[in-house]
Structures are given as structure tokens and as C-alpha cells.
């Protein structure tokens, strides 16, 4: 097979950061080429250079063997290079279809008028081919991250590129959507499209990748065939050492004190009568399909959204939560799934984002801030979570996606709440760091925190949870014990319709269930 | 090169009245061989901006200064500074309190507006409702013209009722809208007084747009006001002698700078003009386009 794209000896530096040095990539048509590396390894930067967003400082790009200069996104498009960005790049006030075809709108009346009907029709066609149930006329700003991601994918497909770059397309997706995406990838591959695929989910490699290129610290490490190379080898190439990953035993919490109890939580059609409790030292996982309502439950508990009904108890005492500050005061922290909009002040530096929820602690008399103490804490978390940043004064928006996520985690670790709700905590985080975060969550639980983890990655839920709550269409369809199987979870996650709430007896009686 | 330099700090700049004052000053400058500059804030409320202009003028070490105070008290420290530096100050348009100005070239706005009131009363038969559109609620000229008109009506024409006084910043369009609302609210209104050029034109426009006939008296001149008087839409108007004010101010300033004696109060006068006398030479001489 011929190489469609060859990137040779690519160099790229940002002020204070050398993002790429001698980076290499060779992509053939009709192959899925995985690009792997730790957070901040330079994967996104490499791809942005290929997509005409950044100019390279050095090196060469060959397209079909001919050297090319790619200076703008437009030029990349014209050369047949499409990209799905890691960070969503959508116009929230426009509809899904309008987003997909921005700049390429079908026209009528001799090109003078927009043809909205055709636009929506074409979008609907692409959605149908993806088995995505989405009205092309919905405003993108109102969609969940996952659905926005699907719109991005649909947009990239609509370009019909020869080379398609996917930068962590599955970070926000759950298994069903991932399956759908992989089916699409298989189709594209058959059509001879060359796909660069970036992901931190190791299991995906075996499923779709043909070859894997590994990067570390902006440098090329090697390219290996996906099928025959053991995952451990790839990981050790990524992190420069071997990782061990053993699942700790599920501890018994049945005698521990109930810290948080939620009774009959309701909010419109998205949360229906959800009740559960978490005990001291326990990690409660939340599983479910996209839009099952897990994020909504978390936000309602946290006071970020108004709720129509339901009581929240801490240590058996009812607490009034109307605003996030009430929740934090009661000892509940919430790490949002959407770091860009709800998690970070991206224009501020690392230090200030880490202390954002705990600023009071660093305030002396007269409202004076203790910068030195803030610095120490920030540096401590930078070390502990291996956050890749030139200093704690770096603006957060200049960090790689995974490192941004770590900063949100650091913020809540510092706030030290009794109950911590993590919504997709490892989204976009590399294997090594993921492991660190799992260890951290376990340690937090051992210290006596009650932890809720919402995750769309079933292995993660299974790996972490002491018990697993499963939601479907706003209902809590069951709570499983830690040792549950994927099949059991999927059964509950698709248990639709009325009466699901009464189905608790179908579920395995979980250890330590309050009722 | 060594021409005598005399800056005039005015109350305004863009209005035609001030442009006429400037024209007079420029003429005097040409006649007397001196350099003048003419500056004023955008609106008559901007007392502090005028002070800044005065400060810059002083920094240029002028031979004398012409000054039309928006608020003479506020300018006192700088005027004192001028006096200390032996720079003579000639007040124009309205007076400056205290003994600093060596001369004052001004119009008696109160008396002029009172004359407008008398004319209005005569034209409407000494009874009925009238209204005022004034350019400014707080500036000296605005207050004087309003009060001169209103007080004269109260004293001499008790049967004339003043039903509305509104302020339109001398903006033609705003004054038009104001007039229309006043006319709408008072179907039996007999007359209106516009206290400066923009206000007067606004009154004329408003009445015309609503197709209402009433007695309109204006203030100052300008092509549109003159035309309105000629074709009968406006009964008449008060005119000052802006060109004369500008000319006399510069003249007095030059004299004072040379150390010559100057007349303390230079009354530049005002006239009522209407269709009958608009073309008489003494009136035509003080009108501007």
C-alpha cells in the first residue's frame, strides 16, 4: 500500500514548550493508524499541523509523495484532509445541520438563497447513515457533549476526505455510540480513506487499528503493527516503563455510615424518582447510555440545576441545596463532564484554577491572598498528577486536553469534600495517568470519602466501583454489586418504559444497599 | 510670526450661532492683524471640558483670552491664573462674575426672551396656552431664556398659560419629536417659543409635520429660520448679534493686550425680527445663514 501522508522530522515549539521534535508519521490509504502517547505528548499538535491550523517550524509533509505546504484549514480541506478536533469546535447558536455545512451550504435561486430544506435533508442522511437519532434542526448549544461530539463526527464525514484525523472522538461517547463509530470507520476504510486515530482507550487499538505510532515528549518512538504487538509493549513505549494494573478487592461497606442519601429526586422528564445512597469509604459507579440522565442527577444534587422534587440528606440530616455553594458547604463536590465550559477558567493560570474552589483557604486578613501557599499547593498537584505544564503560571487554555482535565481533578481534590461526584473523570486522560487517578480515587475512598463516579466506559465503572447504579431514561433501573458483569449492566441500561423503578427486585441485592 | 495670539474659549462650537461668533472673531483678527483660535465643548453641560480648554489656552501664553463661561465660578482658579500672568480676559456671550474680565461683550438673554414673550402675547391675543422648547435645562443661556420668557409672561400677561417646557439639546430632530408630543398633548396650544436655533427649527418642523397652525417665535437666525419667517411658518424671532459679539470681543482683547482702555460693558444688542423687517439693513447685518 502507498503512503498517502508522510510527515517527516516535524518540529514545533510554543513559547516555553517544545511540543514536537523529530516527529514522524506515515499514513497509508485504507488503514486506521493509531497515534498514541501520554497527555501532552504532542499528538494534537502534530495533527493540527497536518490540518493547516499550526505552521510547522521544521520538517516535511508529503502528500502522495509530493511535498506540500498546508497553510490554512481551507487548504487542508482542498487537499482532502479532514479533522475531528479534540476540543469541540461548534457554533452553539446554530443548528446541527447548519454547523455541519458551515461554509458549504446548499443554495438555491442561482446561489443567492440558502436551501434550508436541502441542508437539513443532507444532514439527516448522514445522521441516518450513522444511526443517530437527531433532528438536524436542533440547536447545538442545547446538546450534551456526547451529542455535540456526534455532530462533529457527522460534520467530518460530510467532507468525504481522503485523510480523516480523529482526535479522541470517543472520549465523550459510550459503548453503543463507539460501536456505531467503529462501523463507520470500517466503512470508510473499505472506501480507501486513511484514518489517523487518537485515543487513550487501549482496548480500541485491537478493535480497529492496523498500525500504531507511539510518541513520547514530542518525539517519535516507533510504529508497530496493532494486531501483533501486546498492549503492554505499547504502553511501555508510551510511558517509558511498564505499568501494573491490578483491581483491588471490593471492600464491604455495609456497616459504614451512610453519608449521602438522595430520595425521590425529580426534574422534568430527565430525572424521574431517583433514590440512592452512598456510604463512607464507598465508590458508587453510575452507568448508563448517553442521555440516561446521570449528569442531570449529579447537577441536581449539586444545586447547579433547579430540581422539581426530592430531598438530599447528609449524615441522615436533610440539607437544603439551592445553589452549588450550598452543596459545597454541605460537603459535596462535583467535577463536571464539560471541562471547557463548566470546569475551568481557561484564561487563568494553572495555579488559580487549582485553588478556585478553595480560595477562602488562601485568604488572609483583609482579603489578602497567600500567593506562596497557592504556589506550593499548585506545584504539589502538578507533581502528584504529573500535569505537563511549564509552570503553575501557564494559562490553562495552552495545556493539552488531558492535562486540563487533571487540573479540574486537582481543584476538587484540594477542596476536600466528604462526597465527591466525578462526572467522566478520565475523559481524555492517558493510560498512565488514568491509573494514577484510579489509585487516587481508591485512596480517597479509603480515607473515608464517599465517591460517585459517572462514567460511560464500562471497564472503568467495573474497575472502580464498589456498587454500580444503572440509569435508563431518567430512571434508576437498578443497583448492582461491584462484581457485576457487563451484560447485567447493559440489561439495566436498556430497561426502558414505566415500571422500571419497580424492578429493583430483579437486580442482584447489592451489598450494603440502604433499602 | 510674532502676531498677537488670542484664543476664544466658547460655550459651543458646532452650532451655527457659535460659528457666527467665530466668523466675527475671524474678521476682527484679519482686520487687526492678530491670530485667533476658537474652541468650545460639544455640549453646554460640559463645564469641566471647557476648563481643560481654558487651561490649554493659557499654556500657549496668549496676549489675551476671550471666554464665554459655562459656569464662571468653576473657572475662577484658572481666570485668577490668567490675571496673575497679566493676560487680560474678555468675557463674551454671558458675563463672568467678579472683576477679572476687563470687558464683557454679551447679550442680555433675559431681556431678549422677555421681548419674545411680549411679542408672543401680542400675537395670540394676550391669552391662551403656550409652550417652550429650550436647548438646555441647566446652562446659563438656557436658564436665562426660559426664565426671561416665563417670568415676563407671569408678570405682564397673566392670562397666558405656559403648559410645557421641554429640553431638546438644540438637536433639530429631538426638538421636532418633542414639539409633536407637546402639540399632541395640547390640541388648543396657541404658540411655541424655541429658545435657540435648533429648538426653533424643531418647533417649525414639528408643527409642519402635524399640519398645525400656531404662533412660533424663534431665537437666533440661520437659513431655515429665516426661510420660515419669510414664508410665515414662524411669526418672528429674536436675534442677537453673534458676528458683532465675536468682532467686539477680539477688538476689546487686542486693546486690552496693548494696555489701552476698553469699555467695560459692550452691549451687543438684540432685535426682534419678522417678515416686515427681516430685510432691513440693520437686521440683515446681524443675521447669519
Amino acid at each position: 500500500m502507498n503512503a498517502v501522508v508522510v510527515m517527516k522530522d516535524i518540529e514545533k515549539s510554543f513559547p516555553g514548550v517544545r511540543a514536537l521534535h523529530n516527529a514522524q508519521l506515515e499514513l497509508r490509504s485504507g488503514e486506521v493508524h493509531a497515534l498514541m502517547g501520554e497527555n501532552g505528548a504532542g499528538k494534537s499538535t502534530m495533527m493540527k499541523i497536518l490540518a493547516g491550523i499550526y505552521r510547522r517550524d521544521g520538517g516535511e509533509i508529503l502528500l502522495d509523495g509530493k511535498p506540500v505546504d498546508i497553510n490554512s484549514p481551507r487548504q487542508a480541506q482542498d487537499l482532502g484532509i479532514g479533522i475531528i478536533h479534540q476540543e469541540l469546535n461548534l457554533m452553539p447558536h446554530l443548528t446541527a445541520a447548519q454547523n455541519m455545512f458551515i461554509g458549504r451550504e446548499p443554495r438555491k435561486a442561482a446561489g443567492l438563497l440558502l436551501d434550508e430544506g436541502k441542508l437539513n435533508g443532507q444532514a439527516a442522511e448522514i445522521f441516518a447513515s450513522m444511526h443517530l437519532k437527531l433532528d438536524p434542526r436542533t440547536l447545538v448549544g442545547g446538546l450534551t457533549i456526547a451529542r455535540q461530539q456526534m455532530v462533529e463526527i457527522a460534520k467530518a464525514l460530510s467532507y468525504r476526505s481522503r485523510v480523516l484525523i480523529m482526535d479522541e472522538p470517543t472520549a465523550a461517547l459510550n459503548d453503543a455510540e463507539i460501536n456505531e463509530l467503529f462501523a463507520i470507520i470500517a466503512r470508510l476504510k473499505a472506501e480507501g480513506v486513511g484514518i489517523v486515530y487518537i485515543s487513550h482507550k487501549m482496548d480500541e487499538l485491537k478493535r480497529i487499528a492496523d498500525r500504531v505510532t507511539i510518541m513520547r515528549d514530542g518525539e517519535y518512538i516507533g510504529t508497530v503493527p496493532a494486531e501483533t504487538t501486546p498492549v503492554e509493549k505499547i504502553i511501555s513505549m508510551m510511558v517509558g516503563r511498564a505499568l501494573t494494573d491490578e483491581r483491588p478487592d471490593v471492600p464491604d461497606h455495609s456497616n459504614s455510615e451512610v453519608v449521602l442519601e438522595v430520595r425521590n429526586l425529580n426534574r422534568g422528564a430527565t430525572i424521574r424518582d431517583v433514590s440512592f445512597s452512598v456510604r463512607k469509604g464507598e465508590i458508587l459507579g453510575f452507568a448508563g447510555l448517553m442521555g440516561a440522565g446521570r449528569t442531570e442527577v449529579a447537577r441536581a444534587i449539586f444545586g447547579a440545576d433547579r430540581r422539581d422534587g426530592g430531598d438530599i440528606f447528609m449524615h441522615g440530616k436533610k440539607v437544603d441545596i439551592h445553589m452549588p455553594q450550598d452543596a459545597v458547604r454541605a460537603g459535596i463536590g462535583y467535577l463536571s463532564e464539560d471541562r471547557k465550559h463548566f470546569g475551568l477558567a481557561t484564561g487563568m493560570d494553572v495555579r488559580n484554577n487549582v485553588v478556585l474552589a478553595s480560595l477562602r483557604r488562601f485568604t488572609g486578613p483583609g482579603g489578602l491572598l497567600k500567593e506562596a501557599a497557592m504556589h506550593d499547593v499548585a506545584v504539589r498537584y502538578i507533581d502528584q498528577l504529573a500535569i505537563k505544564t511549564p509552570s503553575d503560571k501557564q494559562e490553562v487554555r495552552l495545556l493539552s486536553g488531558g492535562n486540563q482535565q487533571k487540573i479540574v481533578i486537582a481543584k476538587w481534590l484540594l477542596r476536600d469534600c466528604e462526597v465527591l461526584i466525578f462526572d467522566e473523570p478520565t475523559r481524555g486522560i492517558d493510560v498512565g495517568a488514568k491509573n494514577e487517578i484510579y489509585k487516587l480515587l481508591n485512596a480517597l475512598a479509603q480515607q473515608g470519602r464517599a465517591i460517585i463516579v459517572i462514567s460511560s466506559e464500562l471497564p472503568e465503572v467495573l474497575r472502580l466501583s464498589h456498587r454500580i447504579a444503572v440509569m435508563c431514561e431518567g430512571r434508576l433501573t437498578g443497583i448492582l454489586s461491584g462484581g457485576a458483569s457487563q451484560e447485567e449492566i447493559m440489561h439495566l441500561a436498556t430497561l426502558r418504559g414505566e415500571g422500571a423503578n419497580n424492578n429493583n427486585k430483579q437486580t442482584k441485592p447489592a451489598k450494603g444497599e440502604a433499602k | 510670526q510674532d502676531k498677537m495670539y488670542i484664543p476664544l474659549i466658547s460655550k459651543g462650537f458646532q452650532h451655527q450661532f457659535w460659528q457666527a461668533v467665530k466668523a466675527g472673531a475671524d474678521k476682527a483678527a484679519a482686520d487687526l492683524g492678530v491670530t485667533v483660535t476658537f474652541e468650545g465643548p460639544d455640549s453646554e453641560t460640559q463645564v469641566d471640558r471647557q476648563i481643560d480648554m481654558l487651561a490649554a489656552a493659557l499654556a500657549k501664553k496668549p496676549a489675551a483670552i476671550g471666554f464665554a463661561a459655562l459656569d464662571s465660578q468653576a473657572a475662577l482658579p484658572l481666570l485668577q491664573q490668567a490675571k496673575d500672568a497679566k493676560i487680560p480676559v474678555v468675557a463674551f456671550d454671558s458675563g463672568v462674575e467678579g472683576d477679572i474680565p476687563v470687558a464683557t461683550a454679551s447679550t442680555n438673554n433675559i431681556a431678549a426672551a422677555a421681548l419674545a414673550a411680549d411679542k408672543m402675547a401680542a400675537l395670540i391675543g394676550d391669552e391662551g396656552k403656550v409652550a417652550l422648547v429650550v436647548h438646555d435645562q441647566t446652562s446659563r443661556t438656557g436658564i436665562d431664556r426660559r426664565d426671561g420668557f416665563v417670568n415676563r409672561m407671569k408678570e405682564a400677561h397673566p392670562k397666558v398659560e405656559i403648559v410645557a417646557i421641554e429640553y431638546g439639546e438644540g438637536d433639530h430632530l429631538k426638538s421636532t419629536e418633542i414639539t409633536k408630543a407637546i402639540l399632541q398633548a395640547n390640541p388648543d396650544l396657541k404658540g411655541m417659543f424655541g429658545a435657540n436655533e435648533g429648538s426653533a427649527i424643531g418647533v417649525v418642523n414639528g408643527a409642519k409635520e402635524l399640519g398645525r397652525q400656531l404662533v412660533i417665535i424663534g431665537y437666533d437666525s440661520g437659513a431655515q429660520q429665516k426661510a420660515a419667517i419669510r414664508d410665515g411658518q414662524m411669526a418672528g424671532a429674536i436675534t442677537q448679534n453673534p458676528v458683532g459679539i465675536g468682532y467686539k470681543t477680539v477688538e476689546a482683547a487686542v486693546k486690552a493686550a496693548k494696555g489701552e482702555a476698553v469699555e467695560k460693558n459692550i452691549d451687543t444688542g438684540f432685535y426682534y425680527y419678522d417678515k416686515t423687517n427681516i430685510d432691513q439693513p440693520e437686521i440683515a447685518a446681524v443675521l447669519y445663514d
Partner: protein
Amino acid sequence: MSATASSGTASIGSKFSGAHRLLAFASLIALVLVFSLASPNFMQTSNIIAILQATSVNGVLAIAATLVIITGGIDLSVGTLMTFCAVIAGVVLTFWGMPLGLGVLAAILAGAASGTLSGTFVAKLKIPPFIATLGMMLILKGLSLVISGTRPIYFNGTPGFTQISQGSLIGTVIPGLPIPNGVLILFLVAIATSFILERTILGRFTFALGSNEEAVRLSGVNTDRWKIAVYALAGGICGIAGLLIASRLNSAQPALGQGYELDAIAAVVIGGTSLSGGRGTIIGTLIGALIISVLANGLRILSVAQEWQTVVTGSIIILAVYTDILRRRRL
């Protein structure tokens, strides 16, 4: 406007449909009701026409401002640009004695040219819109005075000129309805702009730029060019406003115009357009402009003392917007 609403979906701009569309008028209708009850002089044809005519200039300026604001920018130069265009019409018609049509064209072209310049500052030189248009506001203000020789230019030599705003085409067709052409032009401009916003590619990019300019750029679109086009269109509309005011006053008043931008922007924001861009409607802007005119007219009709008029106006603007926020929250 009804373009996308007819299909019953929530798409850009057309948040109003059916009953909601009526509710959007709530504040305006409430105001009209109150004033009608308070004074019999308010609800009269002549006064309604006066209100509409008082809206025409500010309404057209506000439409221009709406375009720029939807892109996430702001245009402080609308007021002085209007004056500048009026002066240009004066130069062409009165100084040079050209025919009416050329004067109209010159005014609109001058507006578009100035808009192109502002747009270039913003898009190419990356000067923040506030500064670029503030600078243009001052430049245009000065140029108007320079060109006109700091005196009004009268249009007495062009008899048809006053008809642009003051004549009544509608009145000649339907004698009972002497709606001035100025009002007609306002509505025509509103309909045309609304059409451009909702149906054409330029409109699509107007919203897209305000929603997420970076995303548009990354989609391979020449964002600069489109942004300049929006500013140019807004400038051209200011040219129309310049013709309206000059025709109304039968003169180009070179000193007028500064301060008008605030009324225009206020109308836009009262009309529900977001200053952070991406969201807005022309119908909202029209309602906003009407609210401002009705308030001014009604308070004057009630003979409220002018200092109190200001207080009441301020309070009602806040109240009107708050009501609108409450209404939307409930929906």
C-alpha cells in the same frame, strides 16, 4: 423571520413562534395600554404616526447595529456615520447639483465604504470593534464638519428630497392612512435585513461569527471577508438612515449624530439581541426601538417633568428587559 419558524423548529433567530411571538410584544403593548388609558391624546392616528416616524431613524440605525452585534462586535459609529452620509448626499445634491438618485446612491455607498473600513480594522488588523468604531465615530464626526464647512447643507435645490422621508406613498394609495415614507422605508429595511439574516449565506455567517468565530475559521471559511461584508452592509444601512434624517430636516446637520449610537444599541439589546453575539432578531430590534419611542412620546404627552421622564425611562427599560427575561425563563 417566519422562514424557519414555519417549520416549527427552534432555529437561529426565530425563537418566537405563534403565541410566543405575541408575548414578545408584551412590554410594548403594556406601555401602549398604560399611555392610552392615561391620556386620550395618546391613541390617535396622528400620534401613532408621529411615534412611528420618530422611530424611523433610530430604528434603521438599530437594524444596522443589530447586524454588527450579532457577529459579536459593536458599532459606535452608526450615529456619526448617519450624519456623514447625510453630508455626502448634501455635497452631491446641493454643492454639485446632481440628480436625486445619485445623491441617494452616494449616501449609501459612503456608508458602505465606511463600514468596509471599520470592518477591515476589526477583521484584518484585529482592532477590537469597540475601538475601531469609536475611532471611526470621531473621524466621521470631524469629517462631516470639515466637508460641510461646519454649516448645515440645505436641500432646497432638490425638491423631491423631503419626500424620501416625509412624503406618503401609502397615503396616496390609501388616503386614510398617511403613513410617511420614512416609516415605510424603516419596515422595508427591516424586512430586507431580516431576509438577509435568515435566508442568505451572509446572514448565516453573521450568526456563525458571533457564535464561535474560531470554529468557523477552522471550517475553512474566510471569516475576515464575511465580517467585513457585515460591517459594510451595516454601513450601507446607516447611509439610508442618513437619507431619512436629512430628508426629515431638509438639511444635513453636520453637528448632529453623536449619542444616537446609544439609543440604537439600547433598542437592539432591549429587543433581546445578545451583546456577546450569535443571537438576535430584527423584529426584536424593531420592538426595542418602538419601546423607546413610545416611552419618550407617552411621557411627553403626559407632561411629566423632563427630569422625571429620564428617571421613568431608565426604570422602564430595566423593567421591560426583566419582564422579557422572566417570560423566557417560564417558557
